[in-house]
């Protein structure tokens, strides 16, 4: 293992704030993955849905998953940089 990675691991282990940030990042990635999967499956369903009212409903759900994912991505970006203190 490279020294930098080793130091990162040690930091995550020893600094509680850093540990919390890493855990948040991991959980956020998990949630984003689920949201991406959901959005994809909704868009796939939309292609084959004959009913107009149902299509509108699916579209709404896909838009919601997309908006949540955008919000999550922004949160992830701010978590990517370690806090200055």
């Amino acid at each position, binding site marked *: 293992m490279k020294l930098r990675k080793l130091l990162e691991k040690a930091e995550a282990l020893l600094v509680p704030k850093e540990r919390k940030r890493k855990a948040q990042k991991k959980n956020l990635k998990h949630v984003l993955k*689920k949201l991406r999967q959901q959005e994809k499956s909704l868009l796939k369903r939309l292609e084959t849905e004959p009913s107009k009212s149902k299509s509108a409903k699916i579209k709404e759900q896909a838009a*919601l998953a997309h908006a949540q994912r955008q919000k999550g991505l922004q949160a992830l970006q701010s978590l990517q940089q370690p806090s200055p203190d």
Partner: protein
Amino acid sequence: MTRKLFLPSIFIILAYGFWISPDFKEIAAGVAIFLFGMLALEEGFKAFTGGVLEKLLRQTTNKLWKSLCFGVVSTSVMQSSSLVSVITISFLSAGLISLTAGVGIIFGANLGTTTGAWLLAGFGLKIDIAAYAMPMLVFGIILVFQKARHLKGYGCILSGLGALFLGIHFMKEGFESFKGSFDLAAYAVSGYPGVLLFALIGVIATVVMQSSHATLVLIITALAAQQITYENALGLAIGANIGTTITAIIGSLSANVDGRRLAGAHLIFNAVTAAVAIGFIYQLTGAVDTISGWVGIASDNYTLKLAVFHSIFNGLGIVLMLPMLTPMVRLLQRVIKPRTRTAAEARYLNSANIGLPDTAVEAVRKETLRLYDNASEVIAEGLSLHLPDILSASSIEDTVARSRKPVSLDMNERYESNVKQLYGKIVEFISNSHSTMSPSQSDELFALRAAGRDIIESIKDTKHLHKNLSRYLTSENENIRQEYDQIRANLANVLRQLDAVRRQGHDSAAILSLDSIKIAMKQYDRDLEVRLSALMRDRLISAPMSISLMNDSGYAYGVTKNLVKMGEVLFSTGESQLREVERSVSLDEGELEELLPKPVISTARRTDETP
């Protein structure tokens, strides 16, 4: 009456014993200090049950051999089968493990208790353990006075071990000096009558001391001081094993059906093992001699031979009973049946869970889910619908259109009997249990309590809604009927969507889909405003009707909002950090508004138009 006389009789016998013999006083004090040590040890280990033990138990009970190993290892480490039993009963009553896994743990715990005999016979009698006890007590008590929970836990464990050692020392000393003045061995009874008589004494001693471990220590110290014969010591050890089940049975009387089944399994296991051990006592002692010879135990080292016997005897029980485990569990399920419960009775809240934070949180979650089940039935009937129809695959609109007959329902009575009482029990349980919890566990409990309050609020709103809804369900004015049908359909949809999210479990995306209900709710509210103005302008509904509709749409909004809030807490079952992240991704009011389609100026839905 017998129970009332029991305690004074014990006091009188002990006081008389202390008066005639100072040595007896020393032995009894040794037992008392030993028992105090066990209590401290249990308390210490409970400080670490806020997650670690529960997680371990959850992961190690998916296979029978794992349950067995967990029973052996945890009892060996904690030196207390009763703590392991309490945790097992708590897990069973909270529905976290199966009865088979619970029985496996109890079987393992029986074998685990034998390590106590080994430790005492192997080391306790050979070294001056009192010399270790003193510093342990001093350091332990200093730690007990610390604020941090884990330090307190270590303190309890350390002082508990110190008290155990000190108790053993007093018992040892007591028996040594007893030997000079009085020879108990003169009362030895040989042969089968002796085994049976001393087994009975072992049962009584264990029931009185509430600990087979203490009985065993007493037997070993007495045996080391040659105050009892080896043969009688074997009888006492068998009796101690039966006695411990009686303590478990007394403890399980207040437990739920699974706790009673577990105590039943414990009794069957120990009774069968004891019967076999008594029946084949001479063959077993022969086996003990052979095994002792193999491992180099001297033929006159009776204390270690007793430890060998104890292990063989309990190991034999496992070998005999393990193949019978599944039929035994089936038998217990057939014989010990659950009481018929009312909807208001708590099913998972057991006082044994109070000391185990994670289990207590899980029990509250399961009970709040039951509260939701009761409440959703009342809400469905308040809408003049039936819950199974709502949760079926058929179209909600069709279901609403079909259900034209108002369901006669005393909402107050249903609320009082099915919901309020159960919520009261949940709140009471939370108040009793949150003192032993970490801040995050307390937060979780408070969130669950708030979820329960949301359920109550949604029922209250349905109650207000029910009156007009029943009236307009059969109204001759089709416009108002359609509006109320829309409210019914919306709320039925909310119940269906919540059920779908609940069934998908801890899938993060499923929980986040609850935001779509909020959007639909806002959309409906905005559309209604437009429709209501048009309906009034065209005089399609009367002014009182429009006021009713405005009020009732507000109640429907309240029901939806509260149910969604409840669902976000109750149906999200992942780790607390994951739930926190889910909440952060969930959209706020402003973001939800942005997703709403742009308002379309529409006219009122008239009876002659297609809806």
